[in-house]
């Protein structure tokens, strides 16, 4: 069991309300990602759930029990930190065994569980090393090992991959997703990287200035963003926003078109413009087009396109994929 419910949870540091009031339900076994720009309160929210910060108001229910005033150790949750937070003076074995030792398990049981966790995470050969003798990815695995041995009701991940290089990040992303499939335990994952959010989550919670902007599956957020913030945050490259007469023509204050929903033609098209920068990624090409009427637009086309700086082109948006927003930035549906 690993359901977590937040009821009007708020957090203030002195006068400053970092999280005004949040309601959220996380079902057992879900992989939930908190995503948002830095300073949006996502880490604070995770720390409130962990019990490392005290909520100023509201209630946190874990498995239906009010855990608002419980210390971290009593909540039955495990956490993986951004800095790994391994105990530098202990071997990998002792690091993974630490939560079990604290729980007072007999030694043979601890040894068996550590061995299983180490095997799952390919750490068996490193059990007698100290953390400083390991690479970043291995350290992260030890941190995960320490989290899984005690079989918590949920895992909390605080930007666990941000200290790794790009290639390792992709690999660890897969490993964490596989771990989730394997264990079926609730996971809450904090990141500012929307690619991580899109690829890993069952449910994404988009946060901005301590408020939830939208909650939904990755594709729901991509296809039907509730507001300009979510529309701009989810999707890479970012959605193009157009205001003025072109938006008014469609009965909106702002319209949004994703780079992949713009069709490039050599002549004609709804908007015409000039290619500024062409980024050739091989599989895709990102074109930054200076249009005559609607400002700069980013277009995603196939990798075969051979347009270059200075070429004149026409652009036509896919009419079915235009998002409309009112003056307050709310989606018009």
């Amino acid at each position, binding site marked *: 069991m690993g359901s977590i419910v937040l009821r009007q949870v708020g957090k203030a540091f002195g006068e400053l309300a970092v999280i005004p009031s949040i309601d959220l339900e996380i079902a057992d076994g879900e992989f939930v990602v908190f995503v948002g720009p830095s300073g949006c309160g996502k880490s604070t929210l995770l720390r409130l759930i962990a019990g490392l910060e005290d909520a100023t108001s509201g209630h946190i229910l874990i498995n239906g029990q009010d855990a608002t005033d419980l210390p971290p150790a009593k909540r039955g949750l495990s956490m993986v930190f951004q*800095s790994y937070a391994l105990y530098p003076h202990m071997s990998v074995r002792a690091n993974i065994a630490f939560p079990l030792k*604290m729980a007072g398990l007999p030694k043979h049981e601890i040894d068996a569980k550590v061995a299983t966790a180490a095997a799952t995470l390919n750490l068996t050969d490193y059990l007698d090393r100290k953390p400083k003798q390991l690479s970043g990815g291995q350290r992260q695995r030890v941190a995960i090992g320490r989290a899984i041995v005690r079989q918590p009701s949920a895992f909390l991940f605080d930007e666990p991959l941000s200290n790794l290089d790009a290639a390792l990040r992709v690999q660890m992303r897969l490993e964490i997703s596989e771990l989730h499939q394997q264990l079926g335990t609730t996971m809450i994952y904090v990141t500012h990287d929307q690619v991580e959010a899109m690829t890993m989550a069952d449910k994404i919670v988009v946060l901005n200035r301590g408020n939830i902007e939208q909650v939904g599956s990755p594709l729901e957020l991509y296809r039907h963003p509730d507001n300009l913030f979510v529309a701009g945050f989810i999707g890479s490259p970012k959605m193009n926003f157009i205001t003025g007469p072109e938006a008014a023509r469609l009965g909106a204050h702002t319209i949004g078109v994703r780079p992949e929903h713009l069709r490039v033609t050599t002549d004609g098209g709804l908007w015409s413009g000039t290619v500024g920068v062409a980024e050739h990624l091989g599989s895709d090409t990102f074109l930054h087009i200076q249009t005559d009427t609607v400002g700069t637009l980013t277009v995603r086309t196939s990798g075969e396109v051979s347009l270059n700086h200075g070429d004149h082109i026409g652009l036509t948006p896919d009419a079915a994929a235009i998002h409309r927003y009112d003056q307050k930035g709310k989606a018009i549906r």
Partner: protein
Amino acid sequence: MSRHVSSTRRWTVTIAAWLVGILMFFPILWTVLTSFKTEAEAVASPPSFLFFNWTLENYAEVQSRSDYVQHFLNSVTISLGSTAIGLLIAIPAAWAMAFQPTKRTKDLLMWMLSTKMMPPVGVLVPIYLMFRDAGLLDTRLGLTIILTLIDLPIIIWMLYTYFKEIPGEILEAARMDGATLWSEIAYVLTPMAVPGIASTLLLNVILAWNEAFWTLNLTAAKAAPLTAFIASYSSPEGLFYAKLSAASTMAIAPILILGWFSQKQLVRGLTFGAVK
């Protein structure tokens, strides 16, 4: 890429470093050499550096005139005692200030440091009178108390700096792993802080061992440590250089040996966290 250093430059710097080192060590070396001379040779001009009649008579004389062992035991008692009590008070204090700081923590630390900026002689009379009234004059207990008090700010500052270097996330990880406050201290914090605590301990033993102002002013005979032992051989006329040197050598030898064996620990502790 490493920076190129020309060999001329390297030689110059090496020689300069040796010169400075010898200059700093010379007084100690001269004291040791003088302790093996006769009183006449000690004041001879020009002085002889190595070619004189080496003798141990100063040591024998000093030992027969005053009880080295008793002074030594007094020094050991007050320096170890004040360090132990100081650490007992300072570890929890530095802990609280490093990990549970309040708005006033910085002010408190500065206030503690400021007490070290006042010349000790400024409070000699009140402290002397308090010690007299409390019957603490010329007692080991009195010296232990005063040395604890004067070194406490330094101990707290040093430990605070070491504890600040320990990442808070590791303590939070321990909390998440189910550690109680006590197991967090015993299994995680203390082992990580050992280099810092050890070098604080060593430095404080050295400071307390060498402290002269209070130990000379608050003792007469019974509780007098080695500083008083040395001082008893310094006469205004400067007649007993060789004996004074022998006494000094005997007084600094134990702490010099301790420092020699613990230099690795001391340097490691003092530079702890300087390079991340």
